[in-house]
């Protein structure tokens, strides 16, 4: 054991024969780790933001909708009448109550919104204003006028792009036309059923999210008004549930499924109801892994270069050690020990640097407005200020990967040192 300790001691002291060189190398390698940590923190922060903004624009953390709606999007598919009350009751009991932030029933349909100047295809969302404000981000993005209130039967809230296209402002009149819902379990005896319906509305508010598709397409009106227009009193397309923590999505979806067992509904956590968002994550992850692989390769090559140079410069010293009786394996252990010592110093520096940058971005955010010229960066992120999020497991895995990589890489110079040929290595001149 004392022989191993001596070799470790020699390896450690060898690092400090040239302190400036060692520190510079450690700094360069540490920067690689810091870069890795910062990029992972930004990626996780961006994804967290995409989830938090995306679910608040979309279907919430968990959505309950008629079976088959996810695949078809047909406005004829509605939730059975009792589901709304059953769901609301269940989500107001313990322990669900503590997990849920908001529950919003919605009626969704396609339609045509016309003004005196123009007309545009729109996505109609019938909402209950108070419930919708607890779930969706749109009500918080009103730039002109106000949100819908329960007594505003003829009010409609539209996006800024749509307002521009229709050349309307707050107070303007618009006509909303849509096709009434065909009920599969009834004969079409009602003359309005399945036919075109229209209603006159007044613009009560204009919102701007920065997402083109939303601002040019989405209209909010009161749920009862939408139900009357579509001929489906008391019915909704979906119930969007927003949770306090994204991590509870799967559990809440599972419990809701149990509660609604036997009813023809689909209960989907956001990863299933918003597959496009998941695809974006996967693409981001893949790209990030490639970038991190490049950084790792650079770090590894840096270590390899440094240790290899040290080995080649000390050929005589290794020859001397072997002449005195040091075994090749012991020599290899010495080199690997030196490499691990250098890696440890580099990791410590990298962690320190990465933590400082992460702390700054986690606290003050990274403002990317300049990149997106005032618009939103994607359909899922409204606000291009990204906050870094770095979990302990990410830090541990990053440090472990760098450590393992450099350990493996150091085997080559160690092997080279171990194969130092006597007596050539002992030639002074």
């Amino acid at each position, binding site marked *: 054991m*004392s*022989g191993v300790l*001596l070799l470790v001691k*020699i390896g450690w*002291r*060898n690092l*400090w*024969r040239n302190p400036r060189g060692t520190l510079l190398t450690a700094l360069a390698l540490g920067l690689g780790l810091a870069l890795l940590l910062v990029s992972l923190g930004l990626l996780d922060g961006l994804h967290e933001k995409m989830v938090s903004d995306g679910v608040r624009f979309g279907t919430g953390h968990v959505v309950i909708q008629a079976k088959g709606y996810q695949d078809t999007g047909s406005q004829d598919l509605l939730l059975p009448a009792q589901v709304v009350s059953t769901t609301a009751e269940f989500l107001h009991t313990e322990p669900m109550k503590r997990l849920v932030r908001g529950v919003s029933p919605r009626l969704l349909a396609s339609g045509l919104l016309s003004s005196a100047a123009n007309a545009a295809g729109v996505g109609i969302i019938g909402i209950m204003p108070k419930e919708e404000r607890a779930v969706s981000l749109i009500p918080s993005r009103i730039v002109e006028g106000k949100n819908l209130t329960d007594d505003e039967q003829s009010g409609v809230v539209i996006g800024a792009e749509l307002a521009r296209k229709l050349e309307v402002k707050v107070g303007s009149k618009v006509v909303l036309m849509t096709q009434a819902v065909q009920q599969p379990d009834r004969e079409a005896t009602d003359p309005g059923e399945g036919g075109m319906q229209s209603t006159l509305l007044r613009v009560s508010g204009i919102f701007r999210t920065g997402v083109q598709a939303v601002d040019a397409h989405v209209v909010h009106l009161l749920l009862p008004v939408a139900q009357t227009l579509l001929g489906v009193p008391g019915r909704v397309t979906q119930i969007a549930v927003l949770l306090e923590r994204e991590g509870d999505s799967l559990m809440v979806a599972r419990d809701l499924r149990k509660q609604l067992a036997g009813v023809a509904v689909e209960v989907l956590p956001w990863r299933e109801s918003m597959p496009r968002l998941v695809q974006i994550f996967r693409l981001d992850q893949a790209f990030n892994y490639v970038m991190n692989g490049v950084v790792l390769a650079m770090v590894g090559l840096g270590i390899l270069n440094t240790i290899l140079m040290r080995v080649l410069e000390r050929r*005589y*010293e290794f020859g*001397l*050690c*072997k*002449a*005195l*009786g*040091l*075994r090749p394996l*012991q020599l290899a252990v010495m080199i690997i020990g030196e490499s691990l010592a250098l890696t440890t110093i580099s990791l410590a520096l990298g962690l320190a640097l990465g933590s400082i940058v992460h702390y700054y971005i986690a606290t003050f955010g990274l403002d990317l407005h300049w990149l997106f010229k005032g618009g939103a960066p994607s359909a899922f992120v409204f606000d291009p200020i990204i906050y870094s999020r770095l979990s302990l497991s990410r830090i541990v895995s990053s440090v472990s990967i760098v450590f393992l990589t450099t350990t493996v890489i150091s085997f080559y110079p160690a092997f080279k040192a171990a194969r130092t040929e*006597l*007596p050539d290595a*002992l030639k*002074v001149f």
Partner: protein
Amino acid sequence: MEEQVAIGKPTAEHGVEGDVETWAVELKEARKTYRTGPIEIPALRGVSLRIAPGEFLAIAGPSGSGKTTLLNIIGGLDRADDGEVWVEGKNLQLLTSGELAHMRLERLGFVFQAYNLLPVLTAMENAEFTLLLQGVPVERRRERVQKLFLEIGLAGLENRRPAELSGGQQQRVAVARAMVTEPVLILADEPTANLDSATALSLLDVMEKLNRDHGTTFVFSTHDPQVMERSRRWIRLRDGQIASDAAHASHILPP
């Protein structure tokens, strides 16, 4: 004046006639050729010699005569292409590289021309390096090294690094390291080459004393007349062969 003897034949003054186990070193027609691409350079051309335990001998010769090659082969740092090489009754040609390393650690000591010491270790740590590799406990290591340091005039310098020692002091530490394992044979390749004459003489005094007091065999490869003067036997090499092998006149025993 030196007594001339027949080339390659040991005499009673040099050692006891007998089988290989009685000799510290015995070579029989050892040959070594170095190859650099198509060029072959014969370094040793059939060298035979015997070295008795306790000898203090110098191998001299011009550059390229094969001195270092001979020392390397005796020390197991290199292998002869042909012939036999026996050290302490072991045929080095039959040992694996691991066994050679073990033999170097346990039975031999080395002092090189320069850069003998590991620069990151102190004088004490350098001297005890081989004892550490042998697994000797720390108290015994320290005791042996300190005793040797006292004997060869290094007391008080234990914690200095090589850069803080003079050339002569560094060579003494190398001698201490070579001696500390109580080897039967110390091979010194031009140990005084980088020293001034006073320091070289002082180093020779140390090695001669160790040879006398401990009976350790010393074999030098050297150009240094001072080393040759102190040696009790000279082996001259020329072009990879022994040109002469004689006892120093002052060391010839009276009949």
